[in-house]
């Protein structure tokens, strides 16, 4: 079955420290990979995507993500966290083949303390 796993329900970091939010996927073929962020009582906002090419992709608000095909991972990273980065982060996969549309992980709450 196709799936996306975000193994951490919550990630806590101090402001100014680097952050990583983990994502692994189980999809056959060459999927498209996305990260979205959700603030309370709001919809999802697109951060970045991996389609093909360079394994390190850069996105909005200083975020980047590293695609690792052998480990089927797509971890979200930021060199220096801000308090305003505190939100709920979702990893998503578009299977690029017959099946459902976007498949989302269950989300990781990022808490950045000052």
């Amino acid at each position, binding site marked *: 079955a196709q799936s996306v796993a975000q193994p951490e329900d919550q990630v806590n970091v101090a402001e100014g420290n680097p952050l990583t939010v983990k994502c692994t996927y189980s999809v056959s073929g060459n999927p498209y990979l996305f990260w979205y962020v959700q603030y309370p009582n709001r*919809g*999802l906002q697109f951060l970045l995507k991996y389609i093909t090419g360079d394994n390190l992709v850069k996105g909005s608000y200083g975020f980047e993500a590293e695609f690792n095909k052998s480990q089927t991972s797509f971890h979200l990273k930021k060199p220096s966290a801000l308090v305003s980065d505190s939100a709920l982060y979702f990893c998503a996969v578009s299977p690029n083949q017959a099946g459902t549309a976007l498949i989302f992980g269950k989300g990781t709450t990022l808490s950045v303390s000052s």
Partner: protein
Amino acid sequence: GAGVSQSPRYKVAKRGQDVALRCDPISGHVSLFWYQQALGQGPEFLTYFQNEAQLDKSGLPSDRFFAERPEGSVSTLKIQRTQQEDSAVYLCASSDHRGIYSNQPQHFGDGTRLSIL
């Protein structure tokens, strides 16, 4: 407005009532998606429209759920004879990419929070 608009933002209904949720996508966006987001979970796909055609409804949980997009713009998700398990946030998203499998991001509305008493 420039974004995806959903109404109402909050809806409370008694079990057994019918509800209708509206989505107004970004102007010109061909593709429209509905998702259901249960508390503490990621969104789950319900259905997909390309213009007025409903090309995929594989995620609709039962025949009580019905969606339409008659003129290829505004869409309505209707739930008949609501049950408590229907309580969730219903998200609408649109994309200017033609196709359900896309490398283009989807633009989400703020959702409708549905509570069934």
